[in-house]
C-alpha cells in the first residue's frame, strides 16, 4: 500500500446523531456488517454521536486494506479500531461490540484505555475452544470441522450467498441495492476471519481492561453460552452483567428493544 491510510474510508464509516454528543461506536461481529445494528443504533441518535463501521474484509470496508498478516490475529483488528478512534478525534468512545468485536475492544482498550469511556459487549466469548477447567462451548473437533466446512467453501457458506441475495420476492419495497449489500462477505476472507475468531483466546487480557463494561448475554446462545458470558463478566475488573430474554447469537436483531433498554439503564447508572 502507498501513502497514509484513511481509517474512516478503510472501515466504511457511517455517522449518525449529533457530533457534539458523546461518541458511541458500533462494531459488528463475525458474519455480517454494520447493518446488524439498524434496529438498535437509531435509538441513540438523539443522545449520542453515532459511528458505525465495517471490519476490513466485511461489508463495504476497503477490500484492498485486508492484510493477511495484520488480520490473522485479533490484534490487527484492534489496531484498526485504535486508528479509527484516533482519526475520529471525538473523545473517548462508548464502544458497543458484538461477539468477536467485544474481544477486539478488549485488546484495544487494554492498550489504549484513554480512547474508551465504556464497553458494551453483546454475546462476548474470551475463548470458544474448551480448555482444561474452562468451557468454551466448542470441542477442538467441532472447530476443526467448522473451519474445514468453510475451507471446502462448500455447504452452508459462501457458495450460497448468491441465492440469498437474489432477494425477497415478497418484499419488493426493499431496494435491490440494500439486499445485495447486507451480509455479503468474500468467502475467502470470511474463512480467515472465522479462523482468527474461533481460535482466539483472550482470557488473559480481561483483567487488564480498566474500562467499565457491560456484558449482555442472551438467555440461550450456542455460540457464546451463559457460562462463557459470565466468565467474561467475572474476569473484567469493572463490569456489569445483564441477561436478555432471547435465543440466538444476535439479540440486537431478535430482541432489540430489550437490548436498547439494558444499554440505556447501564449508561444512565454511570
Amino acid at each position, binding site marked *: 500500500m502507498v501513502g497514509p491510510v484513511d481509517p474512516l474510508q478503510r472501515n466504511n464509516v457511517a455517522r449518525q446523531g449529533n457530533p457534539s454528543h458523546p461518541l458511541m461506536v458500533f462494531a459488528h*461481529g*463475525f*458474519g*455480517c456488517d454494520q*447493518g*446488524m445494528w*439498524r*434496529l438498535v443504533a437509531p435509538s441513540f441518535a438523539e443522545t449520542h454521536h453515532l459511528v458505525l463501521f465495517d471490519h476490513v474484509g466485511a461489508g463495504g470496508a476497503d477490500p484492498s486494506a485486508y492484510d493477511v498478516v495484520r488480520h490473522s490475529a485479533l490484534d490487527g483488528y484492534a489496531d484498526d479500531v485504535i486508528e479509527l478512534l484516533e482519526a475520529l478525534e471525538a473523545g473517548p468512545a462508548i464502544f458497543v461490540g458484538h461477539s468477536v468485536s467485544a474481544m477486539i475492544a478488549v485488546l484495544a482498550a487494554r492498550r489504549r484505555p484513554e480512547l474508551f469511556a465504556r464497553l458494551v459487549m453483546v454475546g462476548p466469548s474470551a475463548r470458544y475452544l474448551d480448555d482444561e477447567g474452562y468451557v468454551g462451548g466448542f470441542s477442538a473437533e*467441532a472447530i476443526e*470441522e*467448522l473451519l474445514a*466446512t*468453510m475451507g*471446502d*467453501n*462448500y*455447504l*452452508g*457458506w459462501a*457458495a*450460497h450467498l448468491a*441465492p*440469498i441475495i*437474489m*432477494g*425477497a420476492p*415478497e*418484499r419488493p419495497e*426493499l431496494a435491490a441495492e440494500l*439486499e445485495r449489500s*447486507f*451480509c455479503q462477505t468474500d468467502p475467502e476472507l470470511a474463512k480467515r476471519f*472465522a479462523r482468527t475468531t474461533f481460535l482466539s483466546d483472550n482470557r488473559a487480557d480481561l483483567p487488564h481492561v480498566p474500562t467499565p463494561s457491560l456484558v449482555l448475554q442472551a438467555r*440461550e446462545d*450456542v*455460540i457464546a453460552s451463559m457460562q462463557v458470558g459470565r466468565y467474561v463478566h467475572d474476569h473484567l475488573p469493572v463490569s456489569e452483567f445483564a441477561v436478555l430474554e*432471547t*435465543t*440466538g*447469537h*444476535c439479540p440486537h*436483531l*431478535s430482541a432489540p428493544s430489550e437490548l436498547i433498554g439494558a444499554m440505556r439503564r447501564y449508561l444512565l447508572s454511570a
Partner: protein
Amino acid sequence: MDTQDWTSAPVGLLTLTADGVVLEVNEALLHWTGHCRASVVGTRLPELFSIGGRMYWETHLAPLLHAEGRVDEVAVELVVAAGRLPVLLTAVLSPHGGTEARMHVALSGARERSRYERELLAARSQADHTARQITALHQATAAVSAATLVSEVAEALLSTAAYALGARAATVWLTGDDGELHPHHSDQPPLPAPPGSDAEAVLISLLGRDRVQGVLRFVPASRTELLDHDVLTSIGRQAGVALDRAHLYERSTSVAHELAHSLLAGSAPKDDRFVVAAAYRPAVADLAVGGDWHDTFLLGADAVALVVGDVVGRGLSAAIAMGQLRSATRAVAAPGRGPAVVLAELDRFVEQVEAAAVATVAYGELDLEAGQLTYACAGHLPPLLLPVSAPPRFLWEGRSTPLGSTASHGRVEASVDLAPGDRVLLYTDGLVERRCSDIDDRMGRLLTVARRERDQPLADAVRTITDEMLHGVTAPDDACALLLAWQGPHPASRAGAG
C-alpha cells in the same frame, strides 16, 4: 393445505418460532433424520445441522431472516442417522412481529446439487492451480531472463523463490570452475530459515546445456501449494540456460579486460628529457570494458608522441578496435608529419575498421629539445597544461571532429611552448563525465585537483587525480589519464645552445 398434505409432503417442512425453536415438523423430515417427533419439537432448528450449518444459521441466516424476512435455497447439512444429508433450506418469517411471529421452513434434498457443486469446486480449484503454475513459471522466467551476470541470475532466483514458488527459505548453489557446488552468498537479507525444515526442502537442478549450473534449494511455505514437478523442472532449465548465458558473458568480458590490460601494459620509452605516467580504470558497472587507451612513443631522436583515445563501444569488439587504432597511430606517426596529418591518416584507417568507426583522439608531439608541444584533438576533450609558473589551463585549440565522422573538414593542429618542468595531462571523458553533473563543473574540478597535485611526483599525481575524480562515482565508465612532464633539453645541447 390440510395437515395430512403437510406431513406427507416430499420435502422436510417445519414451523418455528422467530427464535428458531421447532413448533411443528412433518413426516418427511423425521424420516430423513431418524428422530422422533418429541425429540425435534422444542429444540432449535440449527441443532439439527452440522456445525458449519449451525454457525452459518447463527451468524448469517438468522440476521438475514430478521432483515429481509426470508432466505432462499441455502445449502446446509442435516445430521442424520447415516451421517450427513445435504439439503437446501428456504425459510420465510411471517410478517406478524413480536412473539407471535412464525418462521416457515422447507428443506429439500440436495444430493445431486451438492455433487454438482463439488465438481464445480474441483474444476475451479484445478483451474486456479493451473493459473498459479503458469504465473509462477512466467515470473521466474522473466526474472532470470532479465539478469546479466551469474550473481544476478542467482539473486533473481532467490527473489522469485519467495513470491512465485511460495518458499519460506531458499538458497542457491552454483557450480564453480572446479566443478563443485558452492553456496551463493546473497547481498539481500536471507529469507528466515524455518526450524527443522530439512526434510521438506525441495531441490531443483539448474540444468544448462552441457552441465548442471547449480541447484536451487527451497522450503515451500506449504506442501499443498507446491508447484507441479514439471513446472519446477522447467524453471530449473530456464535458470540453467540463463546461467550458461551469464557465464559466457562474464568470460567474454574478462577476455576483453585482459586484452585491454595487455595492450596498455607496454612500458613507456625512457629518455632523460621527459617523464610520463598513466592511469587506466576499466568500467566496473557491468564488467564491460570500453575502448579507452593511452600511449607514448618516441618519434625519431628528439620528439615524443603522446596519445589518449576512446573508441565508442563496449566489450570485446571495442577492445580489439582500440588495439588496432593504437597500433595504427604508431604506424602513421613519423618525425616531421605533425598531428593534423596523423589524424587525417587515422580517418582513412577507421574507414576500413568498422568497430573503430567512431573514436576520439587527443594527439600531441613534444619537441624534446625546444619544448614545443604541437597537438590536435579529434572530438576529444582538451589537454590540460600545468605550467610551473602560471595557472593551469585547458588547450582549446587544434580542435576538429571525431575520427570517422563524415562531417570532417580537414584536421587542424596548434602548438604551445613549454618551459622545463611544465606538465601536460591528456585524459578521456570517463574522468570528467558523470551522470547528473555539469561537464563544466567537472572540468573545473579537474583543474583544481590537478593544480593541487602540481608538484607531486608524476606517478603519484596522476593516480591521485584519477582517484579523486572517480571518487563517489557509482558505476564509472572507463577512464584513462596520461601525464607527461618536460624536463628540459639535454645538458649537452643546452651547453651548445649557450
